[in-house]
Each structure stands twice: as C-alpha cells, then as structure tokens.
C-alpha cells in the first residue's frame, strides 16, 4: 500500500491469521506496522493486493456492509483517538451504542469492564483529565467492549510502565482464550521476550514470519473451527 502518491510503505506482505491466534507485530519505527493494521481495520484500501477479512474480499464488498465487518474488529489506535468531550464511560460505550445495543446492557458491560481495567473511579472523567496510561486503558476497554472476533492493538502498552504493560497483556490473553484473534504491534522487548507468541516482523515493508517454539496462539476454541479470517495479502 501507499499513502497518496507517496512511496509504497508495504510491499511484500502475505499472511493468514488463524482464528484464535495471538501474534506480535514488530519492526522498527516507520517499518509500516500501523499501516498494516490500518489495512486490517479497513481504514485504508490497498493500492494493490488482496485483503480478505472474515472470508470477505474487501475490494468487492459493498460499502454498506463494511460497518458490520468493522464491528467484529476491536482497535486500539496508537494515538488512542478517544473522544475528548465524552466521559470515559461514554467512550467505552461507543461501539455498543453505534451497534444499537440496549442502554441497560451497555451500562452493565461498561461498568464491569471499566472496573476490571482499574478505571472504576474515573468513569465520568473526560480523557484530557486522565493520565496517558489511564487514557490508554480507556482505549483498550473501548476496543474490548464488543467482544470482537479480531483485536488489533497498536502499541497498547506504549504509555505505561512494564508492570502495567504485562498486566494489560494478560487482559489480551484472557480475551484470546475466549476465542478472539489478537495482533499487537509493539516495540517492547520486555513483552516480546516474556510472552512466547509468534511474531510478524516488518522490515522496510516486507513481512517476515517468526514462529517461536510452542505458540501461545492457535489455542482458540477447538469446538469452533472457523475458517481463517484476517488474511492479508497486500504487496
């Protein structure tokens, strides 16, 4: 893919994510991690190549069906992208509201998740009054609230200390254990060495797979042999 008429930032990237897998996406700054994730959460179309999400070819899918696909994908943006005029609660509730979920259900789920991420006391706070780490947790909670089938997190532990980073990673593992496919873009050596998940490594727009011994991923629900989704084939 390329931005506008700029150079190609992703060139040889071919991979298929098994449902229920858990990958790290690594690469030095500017390698194209965020760009690859943008293709996967349908913020960009590839300039050439094929992106297939949940068995749907993005290029041929009618535009009006894209929102329903997007609702199955949870995203933690690198720069959070919280809505500053809404409380933490309303930010987290947003994906459910957009999907038309009942307000009483929303209340219950959001309260629960915010408590779980340690933000129970900050439900009514607006993002600008929260610390970087707290904002990051709100962003993570927003990506998890709708129990997505695919979770894409761009540097979700960039603003927190290693200990909290590890705790957040356990959160993602928990979600993964319930069947969600997870991809986490990260710079953190600590996390990568601590969790033995397979790695997608980007080097100048070229993707290199690294399987490391026994993968933590692929342990998705065996009773749910879904077809591979999240297949990227951009060049």
């Amino acid at each position, binding site marked *: 893919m390329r931005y506008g008429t700029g150079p190609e930032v992703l060139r040889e990237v071919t991979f298929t994510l098994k449902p229920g897998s858990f990958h790290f996406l690594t690469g030095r700054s500017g390698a194209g991690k965020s760009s690859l994730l943008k293709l996967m959460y349908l913020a*960009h179309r590839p300039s050439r190549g094929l992106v297939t999400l949940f068995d749907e070819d993005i290029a041929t899918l009618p535009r009006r069906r894209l929102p329903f696909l*997007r609702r199955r994908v949870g995203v933690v943006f690198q720069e959070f992208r919280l809505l500053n*005029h809404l409380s933490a609660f309303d930010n987290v509730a947003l994906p459910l*509201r*957009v999907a038309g979920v009942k307000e009483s259900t929303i209340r219950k789920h959001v309260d629960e998740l915010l408590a779980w991420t340690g933000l129970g006391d900050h439900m009514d706070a607006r993002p600008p009054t929260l610390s970087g780490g707290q904002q990051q947790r709100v962003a993570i909670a927003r990506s998890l609230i709708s129990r997505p089938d695919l979770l894409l997190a761009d540097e979700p532990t960039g603003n927190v200390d290693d200990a909290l980073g590890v705790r957040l990673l356990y959160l993602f593992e928990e979600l993964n254990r319930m069947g969600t496919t997870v991809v986490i873009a990260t710079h953190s050596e600590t996390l990568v060495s601590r969790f033995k998940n397979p790695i997608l490594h980007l080097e100048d727009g070229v993707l290199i797979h690294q399987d490391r011994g026994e993968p933590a991923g692929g342990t998705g629900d065996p009773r749910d042999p879904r077809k591979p989704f999240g297949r990227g084939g951009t060049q």
Partner: protein
Amino acid sequence: MIRRRTDLPLSRDPSVRLLPWIIGLMTYLACLMLAGSLLLSELLGQWTSGLSGTVTVQVLPREREPARQLDQRVDKLVRILQRTDGIAGARAVPLDEVAALLEPWLGGTTALEALPLPRLIDVRLDMTDAPPMEALKTMLSNADPGALLDDHGIWQDQLAGLVGALELVAGFVVLLVGLATVGIVIFATRSGMAAHQDVIEVLHLIGAEDGYIARQFQGLALSQGLRGGIIGIAMGAATIWGLGYAADHIDSAILPQVRLLAWHWVVLASLPAVTALIARSTARRTVMRSLTRMV
C-alpha cells in the same frame, strides 16, 4: 428539557450557534412575502366580487338637452333593463349622488348644476344567469345611442394582472429564500464535519453506519431549523400586527379593509415546521453524500 447525549460536540460550534438567527431572518422574509401575497389575493377577491356583480350604464346628455328629457331617456332605459333576463335590478342614480361622487374633483355643488352631467344607472346582474356583456351593449345602444355600458372589465383585468405579477414575485422570493436556507445548512453542516473530522473517522472505524453519523447532524439541524423558524415567524407576526394596527388608525376610507384569515395564519404558522424539515433533510443529505468518500 433533557439534553440528548450526542457523540459530536456540534452545538458548541460558532457556526451552529449562528444558524438559528440566519434561518430566522430567512423565515421572516418568507413570512412577509407569504403574508403579503395572501393579503393581495384576499384583496383582489373582495374587489372583484364587489364589482363583478354590477355594471354601470352612463347616459350622456345631448347638446342643450333639457333635464326632463334626459330623465325620460333614463327612465326608459331602466324599464328596458328591468325587463331583461339575467338582470336582478336597475336603479337610476339620483343626481345628488352623482354630484357627491364628483365633488372631490369639481368642488361645490353650485358649479355642478350648470354642467351637463351624465346620468348613471346602477345595474345588478343575476350572477347565476348573467347576460353576455356584448349583447347587453348592443341592446342598450339600439335603445339609446347615448347609453354607454361600463362593466369594469378592463379595470378588473388590469388589477388581476398586477396582483398576479406581485404574487409571482413573492413566490420567487420565497423560493430564493428557501434555496438560501438550504445553502446555509449545507455550509454549516460541511464546516461541522470538517471541524470534527477526527471524531467522525473514529465513529466510522468502530462500525457506525453512515445513517448513525448523519443522525448526529440532522437532529441538531432539525432543532436549529425549528428555533430559527420560530424566531422568524415571531418577528413576522409582530410586523404584520404592527402594520395592521397602524392601518387601523389612519383614515380607513381609502384603505381597503383586509385581514389575514384564520387559514392564512395556519399557513404562516407552519413555516417553522417547514424550515425545520428542510434543515434536517439538507443536513442528512449533505452528510450522507460526503461520507461516501470514506472507505
């Protein structure tokens, strides 16, 4: 009033706060134009129904004709007219009434007596069975070459033409005002979208359908349009009442007595609803159209 939670902080945008006032001004103009054209057609209706049931016959005096002879000619014509089918009544206008009609132009009555005044016959037509004007004319001039029929036709046609033209202009102005309102709402919606592009993108990426995003804008546009409409109609009503009050307090003899009827007020009172709906659907279409540019 419970404020609805919205995902976009639109109501704080300066362009949004200005919107009701601009729409209000537009509604005010539309309201005056509408009221004016309703009044005009009401006026025209009154005039024509007042005039169209009657015709006037002028009987011109001959050179040095004695008044008695002129009276005889008039009496004869009145009798003929009363016998004619389709005529409900005919009456010779007494000389002092004619004099009174002419007094403003000619001054005191003493001068009038010396003048050879034409005599007038008021004819009321039976509107269900009125005779053709041409036939009436020929019949009258056969009976008396000095009898002229004035059916006010030219005067009525010209009046109707003038009122029609004025109404056309008023309708055109209302149309322009409507287009301007649409333009303003498009502009305000676009600038709102530009100001909140980042939020719109987030909503989009977490799976909001276009309609969901459009609803953020159209709800506000509806209430702003309604607010503007109410401002405009309030100013319009005040103006109309003010003018009516002023008209009541000047010599009413030369002014026709027209009032807006109840159904006219209903038409005017529906303006805020109309502006609100125009604003809402304009905002919706604007958002939907520009969202199709997003992936």
